[in-house]
């Protein structure tokens, strides 16, 4: 049977395993958390937030919100959701069963990794929909905020989100390997949360933290035009993709040789 058949079976199974789990709900909760906070802030402050005549309110609403929440929150979300998804397998003593099935270990490792990435992308999508909806709702509640009179400039906002996602790939590779490798979720969770916080702190010093994957998410937004380029591409983007490729491949070979006790 071909690799692709094994891989699709693995994907299908990972989706079944996610049914009714906290990991599944976490994607939704995380996605609506900040839009709700911003919605409430706008409700309270709506008088000061009425835009000048002819100004599109969406730009400020979307960009402030995305830039002030996503970069800090995403690394922690990744640490948490990756641990949770892997914990479904560890809790069920699943790995010994999976690795005794006539299925390549690669399809299991990369199938699960794909689902983790998918869960993160889906969270981004929910998040974007949630912000848009909260904006429209504000438009109905306080028409003078002007949300109903202008169109959001989707391309601009989606580009920021896209950059943030790619900058997060590096830590997805690291956290996924750790969560697969260690049954005890305290290890990937504690390690990841600690580094995510360190990442936020050291991002104040971009020269150094540009090599630290846990800072990429913040740097991808905070550096703006000052982002160093490699072949015309943001260096954080390149480092993040490299980190993802190296850690996923290393992680796979490490897991493949592991004694399943």
């Amino acid at each position: 049977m071909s690799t692709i058949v094994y891989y699709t079976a693995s994907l299908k199974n990972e989706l079944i395993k996610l049914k009714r789990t906290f990991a599944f709900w976490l994607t939704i909760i995380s996605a609506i958390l900040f839009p709700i906070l911003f919605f409430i802030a706008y409700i309270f402050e709506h008088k000061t937030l009425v835009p000048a005549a002819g100004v599109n309110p969406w730009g400020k609403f979307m960009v402030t919100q995305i830039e002030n929440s996503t970069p800090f929150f995403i690394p922690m979300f990744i640490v948490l959701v990756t641990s949770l998804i892997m914990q479904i397998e560890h809790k069920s003593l699943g790995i010994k069963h999976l690795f005794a099935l006539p299925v390549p270990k690669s399809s299991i490792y990369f199938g699960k990794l794909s689902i983790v990435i998918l869960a993160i992308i889906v969270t981004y999508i929910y998040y974007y929909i949630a912000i848009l909806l909260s904006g429209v709702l504000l438009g109905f509640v306080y028409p003078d905020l002007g949300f109903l009179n202008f169109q959001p400039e989707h391309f601009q906002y989606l580009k920021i989100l896209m950059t943030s996602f790619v900058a997060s790939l590096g830590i997805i590779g690291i956290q996924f390997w750790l969560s697969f490798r260690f049954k005890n979720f305290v290890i990937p969770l504690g390690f990841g949360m600690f580094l995510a916080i360190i990442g936020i702190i050291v991002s104040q010093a971009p020269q150094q933290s540009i090599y630290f994957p846990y800072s990429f998410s913040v740097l991808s937004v905070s550096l703006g035009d000052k982002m160093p380029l490699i072949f015309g591409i943001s260096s954080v983007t390149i480092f993040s993709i490299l980190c993802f490729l190296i850690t996923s491949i290393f992680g796979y070979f490490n897991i493949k040789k592991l004694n399943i006790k």
Partner: protein
Amino acid sequence: MNELVVETKNLNFSYSKNKNDIQDLELKVPKGSIYGFLGPNGSGKSTSIRLILGLLKKNSGTVALFGELFNEQSRLNVLNKVGALIENPSLYEHLNAIDNLKISANYRQNISSNRIQEVLETVNLTKAKNKKIKEYSLGMKQRLGLAISLLSNPELIILDEPTNGLDPKGIIEMRTLIKDLNKKFGTTIFISSHLLSEIEKTCTHVGIIRNGKMLYQDTVASLKDSKGTNIKVEIEVDNPNEGVSVLKNLKMENISLLDDLLQIEVKNKNEITDVIDVLRTEGIHIYQVTIKNNLEELFLSLTEN
């Protein structure tokens, strides 16, 4: 019958440097057998099973399944013909039985939803198929684990202490099921247990392991033969003391009393009738005659030092 479905040679493994958890293990499981892998807790049964399935990296030695060396190249081909239940079953507790079976079926491919219903029926879980595993008892989980290992109609089924957590009825059902599979489909069954009675009632072959070393490996029939020729009999009578003195007149060996029950050794089953006749002639009432299982003693003597 000479074809070996599982064969290990010089198998060695240790979890840590200073200790040898499996030593020079030479397993020989003939095709079509029900092989009982017997040993006390911590003797290395589960470790051996993990080594057979390639879950642990052996320090040295070889594992061959279906006459084919188990390695990176043969792994998928070999595992395709195996169904295994390793220690506690791997089940997703937040899902129901159907979903759990579906997951294994998807991984294995070509398994129809009919087959899922069939194995549920086999292990008697049809009524509970839509219940979440969280709500299952230990015995139900064990049975679902067994159902999962049956899904692909494997040529070899490996069961690690499958009667753990089963009630007496469940144990008998499991025993019948194992024998049926073996008889109907010629499935080779490798089953580990720390209970001799379990193995004795079900298995054709036995391997006894202690501290990671194989102590004895043969058919169950030869194990029974090897324990000496005398049959130990226990008799319950109304007057044990009189019974002893009556029997002492016969030229029989090793007559004694244990908890008011007569203990006697006879050379063959015909002598049991003789003993009964003698006791009855003296007017002694007999309530019960039992042949004692001295395999138990043999097992203990094999596994103690």
